[in-house]
C-alpha cells in the first residue's frame, strides 16, 4: 500500500497531464487550469516548506553536534530568521504590520533582496569568470584536437562579439554569426534531440512505474 498507492497516483496524474494536451475542450481546459494554477502551485509552496525544514534541521544539527565550521550555521539561521520575519510581517511592498523603515533607512524584504541577494549572486557568478579562464588554460595544455577546436571557437566568438573584432577584420563579426548559426546550431540541435528523447523515455518510465527512485528508500 505504501508504494502501490503513490504508483497508481503518479500513473493517473501522468495520464491526466498527457490528456490535457490533446483535449482542447473548454471544460477540460478549466480543470487543467485549476490543476496548474491552484493545486500544483499550492503543492510547490508546501514543498518549499519541506525543503526549508530540511535546511534548518541540517544546520541545527550541525550546531548541536559542533561539526566543522558550525559557527557559520548561526549566521545562516539568523539571516534566514531575520529576513523571513521582515518579509512575512513587513509585507512584500512594506505594507505589513511590522514597520520596515526607521527615519530614512528602510529594511523591507525587497531592499534586502536588492542589496544582499542580487549583489552576492552577481559576485558569485563574476567569480566564475576567473575559474573558467583557468579551466580554459588547463584544457589548452591538453593539446588534443578537440580541446584546440573548442578553444579556437571560443576565442573567435569572444573576440568577434566585441568592437575589437570588427577593428581586426570587418568580416570577423559575420564569421562569428556563421559559427553560431551553422556548426553551433547543428551541434546544439543534435544534443537537444538526444535530450528530448531521453526526457520522453524517462517520463514514460516514471509514469509507468518502471523508474521508482523518487519513492526513496524504506518500505
Amino acid at each position, binding site marked *: 500500500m505504501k508504494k502501490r498507492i503513490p504508483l497508481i497516483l503518479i500513473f493517473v496524474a501522468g*495520464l491526466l497531464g498527457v490528456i490535457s494536451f490533446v483535449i482542447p475542450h473548454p471544460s477540460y481546459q478549466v480543470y487543467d487550469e485549476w490543476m496548474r494554477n491552484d*493545486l500544483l502551485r499550492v503543492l*510547490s509552496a508546501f514543498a518549499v516548506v519541506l525543503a526549508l525544514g530540511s535546511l534548518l534541521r541540517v544546520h541545527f544539527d550541525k550546531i548541536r553536534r559542533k561539526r566543522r565550521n558550525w559557527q557559520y550555521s548561526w549566521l545562516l539561521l539568523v539571516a534566514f530568521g531575520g529576513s523571513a520575519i521582515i518579509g512575512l510581517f513587513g509585507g512584500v511592498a512594506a505594507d505589513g504590520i511590522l514597520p520596515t523603515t526607521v527615519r530614512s533607512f528602510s529594511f523591507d524584504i525587497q531592499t534586502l533582496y536588492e542589496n544582499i*541577494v542580487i549583489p552576492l549572486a552577481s559576485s558569485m*557568478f563574476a567569480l566564475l569568470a576567473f575559474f573558467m579562464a583557468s579551466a580554459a588554460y588547463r584544457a589548452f595544455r591538453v593539446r588534443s584536437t578537440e580541446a584546440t577546436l573548442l578553444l579556437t571557437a571560443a576565442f*573567435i566568438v569572444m573576440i568577434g562579439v566585441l568592437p575589437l573584432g570588427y577593428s581586426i577584420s570587418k568580416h570577423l563579426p559575420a564569421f562569428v554569426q556563421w559559427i553560431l548559426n551553422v*556548426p553551433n546550431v547543428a551541434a546544439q540541435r543534435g544534443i537537444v534531440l538526444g535530450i528530448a528523447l531521453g526526457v520522453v523515455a524517462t517520463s*514514460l518510465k516514471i509514469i509507468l512505474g518502471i523508474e521508482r527512485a523518487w519513492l526513496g528508500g524504506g518500505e
Partner: protein
Amino acid sequence: MNISTDPWVWIASILSLAILSFLYKENPFFRAAEHIFLGVANGYLVTFYWHRILMPILFRPLFQQGDLLLIIPFIIGMLYLTRFIPRISWLVRIPIAIYMGYWTGVLIPATIQAKIIKQVQGTILTAPNFQSWNAGTMGIVWSVTVFIGVLCTLSYFYFSREHKGVIGVTSRVGIVFVMIGFGAAFGYTVMARISLLIGKLQYLLGDWLGIIR
C-alpha cells in the same frame, strides 16, 4: 573621490568583497558572506511563497471566501509535512506523485512537439529551410551542413554500437561539430561572466568609492 553614504551600498560592497576574496583562497569572510546569502535568499523565498501563493491562492479564498474546493490542495499539501513524522512519513509520496506525475505527463507531448518535431522540421532539407537563411544558393549549403552536423552529432552520442566503420567516421565528424558548439557556448558564457565582473567593479569603484563615474 565621492564615497557613498548609503548604508546599503556599504553592506552590498563589503559582502561582495567577501565573496570575491575567494580568489585568494577559501576564508572566513567568504564563508560568512555565503551563509548570509543563503539565509536571506531563503527568507525571501518564504516571503514570496507566503504572500504570492499561499495567501492569495489558498488561505484567503479557503478561509475568508469559503472556496471549499481548495480544501483538496490544502490537505494534499499538508501531507508533505508528514516527512517529519517517521511513522507516517510514506504519505509524503502522495503529493510528490501528483505533482511529478502531472508535470511529467504534460512534459511528454510538449517535448515531442517543441523539441523533436520542430527541431526535425528545421533540420530536414526543404525549400522553406533553404530560403530561411536569406543567403541565396549558399542557403542550400548551410542547410546541408546543419543536416549533416545534426546526424553526425547524434551518431557521436549513439553508444549502442561500437564507433567503427561508418559510425566511426560520422562520430569523428560529429565531435568536430560538438566541440565548435561547446566552444561557442563557452565563449558566450565567459563574456557574460566578464560583463558581470565589469558591472561589479563599476559598482565597487563607482557607486561605493566614487573613484569612477
